[in-house]
């Protein structure tokens, strides 16, 4: 079975083609174009959606070319329906609807967060993991129980990706800033105490953000280093709590911030302490990509017919723990 997946929740517009054989999936192509705002600025939803519109034909045809697949050979089309930025989501949905109606191909709206997890499971081989989803849109610890992903801990305000981006922008980087902060942090080992806020299994980053901005005038490198150390220690602690509480023997990290080496180093140590297997989505597929959407659509097609065009939708708010997983 061959599927096309279209991702356009935030800064990335991506198309991917995957082939599914039983429970095995193979990525035939995954093409992306990422919107870059000017230095010091965040994603402007309208500008990002214009970017996606402009590049969508190119990305789509390159994706088909690389996979050596013609549109009429596709069995299904899936698109990310949320959560994300409305104007950006609409671009992906319009592309998906147009193809689906013109070529009469079944269409599947997919939850973007679920996509991160399913692709992570496919690529790492994790069976029954505790999942840490860390990105610009999510900071959640999840485990699967009774047809739904249940939240064991999450952020009470901004996400891990947001604190890195918002701080990064305040010192002149362009979003996404994770890599710049990580690089600058390597040049310091001078830790400055910052607010550490763990509430049970949940975290809160807003106080940490303000406090980091307040120490930046002394040294940007120290601030980046201390921010990473504090925020990642908070994440590691809640992961450790959830591991101890659920007794899971696998940890899977997905989402854009999974690419950060310091974070994965810390979480690897946590896993060692709890004799738990450590899985991390490969850097290339940790962040937003069409493959995550395509694979989830293919999984859903096992148990569901596509939706009819009039029922296709996009939504900015769509919590992962409200999705029923039947496959």
């Amino acid at each position, binding site marked *: 079975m061959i599927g096309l997946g279209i991702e356009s929740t935030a800064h990335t517009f991506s198309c991917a083609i995957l082939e599914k054989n039983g429970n095995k999936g193979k990525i035939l192509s995954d093409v992306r174009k990422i919107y870059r705002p000017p230095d010091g600025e965040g994603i402007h939803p309208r500008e990002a959606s214009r970017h996606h519109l402009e590049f969508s034909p190119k990305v789509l045809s390159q994706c088909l070319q690389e996979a050596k697949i013609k549109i009429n050979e596709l069995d299904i089309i899936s698109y990310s329906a949320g959560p994300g930025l409305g104007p950006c989501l609409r671009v992906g949905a319009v592309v998906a609807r147009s193809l689906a109606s013109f070529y009469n191909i079944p269409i599947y709206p997919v939850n973007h967060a679920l996509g991160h997890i399913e692709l992570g499971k496919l690529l790492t081989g994790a069976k029954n993991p505790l999942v840490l989803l860390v990105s610009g849109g999510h900071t959640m610890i999840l485990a699967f129980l009774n047809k739904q992903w249940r*939240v064991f801990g999450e952020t*009470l305000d901004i996400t891990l990706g947001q604190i890195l981006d918002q701080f990064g922008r305040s010192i002149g980087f362009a979003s996404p800033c994770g890599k710049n902060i990580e690089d600058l942090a390597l040049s310091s080992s001078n830790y400055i*105490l910052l607010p550490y806020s763990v509430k049970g299994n949940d975290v809160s980053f807003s106080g940490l953000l303000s406090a980091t901005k307040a120490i930046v005038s002394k040294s940007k490198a120290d601030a980046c280093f201390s921010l990473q150390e504090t925020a990642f220690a908070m994440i590691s602690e809640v992961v*450790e709590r959830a*591991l101890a509480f659920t007794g899971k023997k696998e940890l899977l990290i997905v989402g854009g911030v999974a690419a950060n080496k310091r974070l994965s180093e810390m979480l690897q140590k946590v896993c060692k302490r709890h004799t738990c297997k450590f899985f991390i989505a490969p850097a290339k597929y940790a962040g937003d990509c069409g493959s995550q959407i395509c694979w989830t659509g293919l999984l859903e097609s096992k148990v569901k017919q596509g939706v009819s065009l009039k029922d296709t939708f996009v939504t900015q708010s769509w919590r992962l723990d409200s999705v029923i997983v039947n496959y």
Partner: protein
Amino acid sequence: MKLLRKGAEADIYLTMWDNSQAILKVRNVKKYRNPILDAKIRKQRTIKESQTISLVKSFGISTPLVYYVNLKKSSIIMQEIPGKPVHDLPNSKIIELSKEIGKIVGVMHKNGVMHGDLTTSNFIYYKNKIYVIDFGLSQNTIKSEDHAVDLRLIKEILNSAHAQIMEHSWKNFLIGYKSIVGLANYTKITNLVSVIESRGRYATVI
């Protein structure tokens, strides 16, 4: 010494104190954490835990007796409660005990203590009594918002680890809680729980 459990925060050993069995709780160095931050967290929580464990006892809540605190090693020796965590009890029992747990949480809040880590593993059922443990994240606070954070956490745990019995058990918890804090506080705090939930990522915006 026998290692009983590797918790998230601390390792739990079985030891002897004054010729009887006791629990040794050690907050060991976490190598993944920056040493300055690590030392601060371990010391702060050891102090907080030993203080609150004794404080809430004076409200009539059952907690282990603290025998000895070693701040240098971030360790506490305390009474052993040989019962079972509520988390491991049969569903019907958890539903039944939820009311009592609600009462206990109500008494803590009424006396200005927030537990900070209300999970079903931190209530031990022993000889028909519920003991509360793990006060490392507790705070002395009379703010309704803080109390609501406590309630939200136990709700989150029921909703995830005990999804099948969530409705019954949460209802019973609230009945118990209301009977202690009174209708006015109950209404205020449960409304705040909804406010915190609505702040959650991608919660349905009305």
